[in-house]
């Protein structure tokens, strides 16, 4: 089995790239299969590729742009000899060692695996979504905000990401309706204050979007009050969705131990999954903190767990 690599890292957000920096510096010559280009958060670099200013990553007192931060992570991993493949893993077999990972017909083998596939944004789940995506319905405020200059638009969601998007979009839109399902935000206090202080943001509490209208492009939406069940039209030309995330774990169904919600289960205080030699880090196993810094921290844990496990196996 001399051809098997030491470690393959699947995914390239803050967790995967931190694991790459650490395993590369430990001379494990990691291979990172970084994902496939897309306009959703399921892409190389992960969710931060679709954000603007990151204000809470320590070490950047004046903030840093999300894509720039991820480019820095990647450059740092590359500097120590990380190998990258820009594609998506299509199948894995962890039933025997070396572990096997495929990209379509090409097989890669490794003695250990670090899973850091992250999470992607949930959509509303409405049938009209498919035809309207890119035509008024957007997954990327930073890409598409520009096209809604002086228009009225809606952002759906009550968490930090929703408020960040809504605030960013007020640079372009004349008005942003922030559609929140409950009568309170999930967001942090500083973000809540930011939303409440912004004159262009109107918060629509206890509401859900239940339909999108328009043939070639979005012309409006239907809002339903979650308490009275009354519906009313919402006159917007753009809808941006930030209602939460789901972990990217379809690849590991029936293979790795996971919660009903799809999040991988790791041994508390470590990155160990239920298969020895397979480690998990970042948002794919964290529905509690979900921060760039916690993902990076758990990526470091996975790298150290992996290095020690490989050493013990070797003895």
């Amino acid at each position: 089995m001399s051809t098997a690599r030491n470690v393959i890292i699947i995914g390239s957000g803050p967790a995967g790239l931190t694991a790459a920096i650490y395993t590369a510096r430990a001379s494990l010559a990691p291979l990172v299969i970084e994902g496939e280009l897309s306009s959703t958060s399921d892409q190389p670099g992960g969710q931060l590729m679709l954000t603007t200013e990151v204000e809470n990553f320590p070490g950047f007192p004046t903030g840093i742009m999300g894509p720039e931060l991820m480019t820095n992570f990647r450059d740092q991993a590359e500097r120590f000899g990380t190998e990258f493949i820009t594609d998506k893993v299509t199948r894995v077999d962890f039933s025997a060692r070396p572990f096997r990972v495929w990209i379509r017909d090409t097989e890669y083998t490794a003695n250990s695996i670090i899973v850091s596939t992250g999470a992607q944004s949930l959509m509303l789940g409405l049938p009209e979504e498919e035809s309207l995506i890119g035509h008024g319905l957007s997954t990327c405020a930073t890409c598409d905000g520009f096209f809604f200059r002086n228009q009225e638009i809606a952002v759906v969601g009550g968490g930090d990401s929703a408020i960040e998007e809504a605030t960013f979009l007020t640079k372009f839109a004349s008005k942003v309706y922030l559609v929140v399902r409950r009568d309170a935000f999930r967001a942090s206090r500083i973000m809540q204050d930011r939303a409440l202080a912004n004159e262009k943001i109107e918060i629509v509490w206890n509401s859900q979007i239940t339909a999108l209208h328009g043939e070639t492009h979005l012309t409006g939406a239907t809002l339903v009050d979650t308490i009275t069940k009354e519906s009313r039209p919402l006159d917007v030309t753009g809808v941006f969705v930030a209602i939460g995330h789901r972990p990217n774990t379809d690849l590991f169904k029936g293979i790795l131990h996971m919660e009903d919600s799809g999040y991988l289960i790791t041994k508390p205080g470590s990155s160990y999954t239920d298969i020895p030699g397979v480690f998990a880090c970042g948002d794919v196993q964290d529905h509690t903190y979900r921060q760039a810094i916690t993902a990076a921290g758990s990526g470091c844990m996975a790298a150290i767990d992996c290095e020690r496990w490989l050493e013990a196996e070797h003895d």
Partner: protein
Amino acid sequence: MAEGIVTLTSATFDEVVQSSSTPILVDFWAEWCAPCKAIAPVLADIAVEQVGHLAIAKLNVDDHGDIAQRFGVMSIPTLLVFDKGELQKTLVGALGKGRLLQELSEFLPSSH
């Protein structure tokens, strides 16, 4: 600018698209769009590999918003493919090279 990629402006768009001897893919992009930057090297590759089969051009929506508006572009990257001056295909969002080549297969010589 990568080799073989034409930069279009509001002034040159119609003439270049109408007179292209091969199908031409126009990439609507902007400096502030991270997925646009991510696909730039993919398009640069395709431009070189498909010389004589598919022309690749770029249009900056910040500077030439009128053209973006004319084609209803509301999300970038958007890739429009024209053949003999007619719009034949619209692709919205970033794609990896493999999937993009699949989407463009009708405009490319078959690989076998």
